[in-house]
C-alpha cells in the first residue's frame, strides 16, 4: 500500500519540466524582464544566478510559451564540441542537415546570417553556458553581431564563473538578468503552490511558518536545495508512516524530521 507521503515526496523531485514551473513574484518578474529583453534589438542576453535559482526552468518556460510566436531554439545540454555546435546552428538556420563528412565554414555561416538580417530573427537559448569555451563564446558573439541571431545565455554564478561572465559577456552591451535565492515568503509560496498543484492540501496545511523558517535557513532560499530537503523529509515520513506511525503527526510537520533530513543532506553538521 502506498504511503500518503509518497505523492508529496514526488512533488519535490528536481526537474526542469515546464509543468513543474511555479509562478512566484520573483520568477514572474524575471520572466517579464526576459520577455521584454528578447523584444529589444539586443544581441545577447545574460541570465545570471547561483545554481538552483531557477534559470533552466525559466528558459524552458520561456521556450514553451514563446516557441509558437517566435523562432526560438532551446539548447538544453551544452555542446562542448565546436564542430557539433556549429552543425546544430547550421541546421536551425538552413533547416537542413549538414551532409556527412562535411564541415561548417564559420565565415560562410556568418555571411549567410548577415544576409538574413531583417528577414529572420532567430533566438537561441543556451543553458549552462559556463561550459562553452572562450573561443566558442567569441564565435557566438560574432554570430550575434549579424543581428539575425540573438542568444540568451544562462550562466552559473560561482566565483570562477563570475570571472568568465565578466570577461566574456559583461564587456559587451548586453542585457543582464540576475536570479537570486528566494526569500522566506518565496520559499513558502513555492512549497505550498507545488503541493497544491498536486492537490495535496493536508500536507500543505501541515507546513507552518516555523517549518518554512527552518527550511529557508537550511537551504538559504535555494529552490533546488529546498526540493532536495523536502524530498528527504517526505521520504522519512514515508518510512515512519510504514514502520512507526506513532512517532509522527499528520496535522503538523515535525521539526525533528526536517532537522534529520538536514543532517542527512549535510546542511547540519553534528
Amino acid at each position: 500500500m502506498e504511503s500518503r507521503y509518497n505523492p508529496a515526496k514526488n512533488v519535490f523531485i528536481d526537474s526542469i519540466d515546464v509543468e513543474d514551473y511555479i509562478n512566484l513574484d520573483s520568477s514572474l518578474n524575471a520572466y517579464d524582464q526576459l520577455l521584454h529583453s528578447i523584444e529589444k534589438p539586443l544581441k545577447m542576453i545574460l541570465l545570471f544566478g547561483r545554481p538552483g535559482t531557477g534559470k533552466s526552468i525559466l528558459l524552458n518556460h520561456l521556450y514553451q510559451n514563446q516557441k509558437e510566436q517566435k523562432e526560438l531554439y532551446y539548447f538544453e545540454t551544452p555542446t562542448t564540441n565546436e564542430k557539433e555546435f556549429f552543425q546544430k546552428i547550421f541546421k536551425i538556420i538552413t533547416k537542413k542537415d549538414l551532409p556527412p563528412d562535411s564541415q561548417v565554414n564559420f565565415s560562410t555561416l556568418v555571411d549567410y546570417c548577415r544576409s538574413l538580417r531583417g528577414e529572420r530573427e532567430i533566438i537561441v537559448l543556451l543553458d549552462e553556458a559556463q561550459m562553452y569555451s572562450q573561443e566558442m563564446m567569441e564565435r557566438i558573439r560574432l554570430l550575434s553581431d549579424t543581428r539575425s541571431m540573438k542568444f540568451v545565455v544562462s550562466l552559473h554564478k560561482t566565483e570562477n564563473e563570475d570571472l568568465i561572465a565578466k570577461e566574456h559577456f559583461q564587456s559587451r552591451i548586453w542585457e543582464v538578468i540576475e536570479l537570486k535565492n528566494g526569500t522566506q515568503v518565496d520559499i513558502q509560496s513555492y512549497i505550498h503552490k507545488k503541493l497544491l498543484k498536486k492537490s495535496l492540501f493536508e500536507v500543505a496545511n501541515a507546513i507552518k511558518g516555523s517549518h518554512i523558517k527552518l527550511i529557508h535557513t537550511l537551504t538559504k532560499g535555494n529552490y533546488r536545495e529546498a526540493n532536495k530537503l523536502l524530498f528527504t523529509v517526505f521520504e522519512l515520513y514515508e518510512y515512519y508512516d510504514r514502520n512507526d506511525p506513532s512517532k509522527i503527526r499528520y496535522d503538523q510537520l515535525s521539526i525533528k524530521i526536517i532537522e534529520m533530513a538536514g543532517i542527512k543532506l549535510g546542511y547540519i553538521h553534528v
Partner: protein
Amino acid sequence: MYDVEGLEKEWKRYKSKQRTPWIVSAVLIALIIIAIVFRADFSAILSKYSKDNNSSIKREKIIQESIPLKPYVPTMAPKSESNHTVQKTAPLKSESNQTVQKTAPLKSSEEVNQSAEKKKVPPMTIEVSDLEAEPVREHKRKYLKIEVTDRYPAKKKQTEKPKKTTKKKKKQTIKSVEKNFSKSRSYYDSLYLARAYYKKGNYPKAQKWALVTNDLNSKLEESWLIFAKSKAKLGERREAEQILSAYIGKTNSTKAKALLRKIKKGKF
C-alpha cells in the same frame, strides 16, 4: 532507504550540542540573578558573622583580662620587697577576688540582650582604677600593657604605683570620673560612680548615679540593683521592692529575685 535509527541518534547528539550553550548561559544568568538578589542578604550575614566574631573576640579578651589578675599579683610584689608592700598588695588580691566574684554570677545568669552591655562594662575597670587612681579608660589601656610587662621591667614599676593608693586618690578618681562624665555622658562612667558611691556608703549619690545610668541604658541590670539597694539602705524598702518586682516582671532576673527576697526578709 536511510538508516533512520542512526539518523535519530545523530539528531539527538545535534540537539544536545545545540542545547548546551543555552543551558550554560541560563545557569550563568540564574547565578548572576541570585547573586544580585541575595547580595544584600549575604552582606548582612557577613557583617553579622564578623560582628559575632568580634564580640566573641572581645569576650575572650575580657576573660583573658580577668584571669591574669591572680598570677599578676606576685609579679607586682616581688620577693625582694618588704613585708609592708606585701601587706599592701594583699587587699589587691581580695579586691580582685571580689570583682571576679561579682562578675561570675553575672556571666552565668544574664540574659542574651544584656550580654553585649556586660562586655562593654568590664569588671576590670573598678579594680584597676582603684589601684592606679586614674580615669577608667586609661587604666584599661595600662592594664593591657601590664600583660606585656613581664618582659619589660620598666613598666612593672608603673603598675606598682597603685599599691600606694589612698582614700584621697580614690576621691580624686571619683571627681575626675564625674568631670569626665559631664563631657562623655557615658554610662560606663555613671555606673562606675554609682558603684563607687554605693561602696563608700553614699547611698543618695549612688541612687542618683544609678538613675543616670538607667536613663542612659535601661538594660544594665547593675544600675537597677544599685538603685534598689540604695533605696533599701536609705530605709525606702517598699520602693526598693516595687522597683525590683517591676524589673523581675520585665526580665525575670535571678539576681533581682534574690535581692528582693533578702529585702523582704529584712536581711538586707
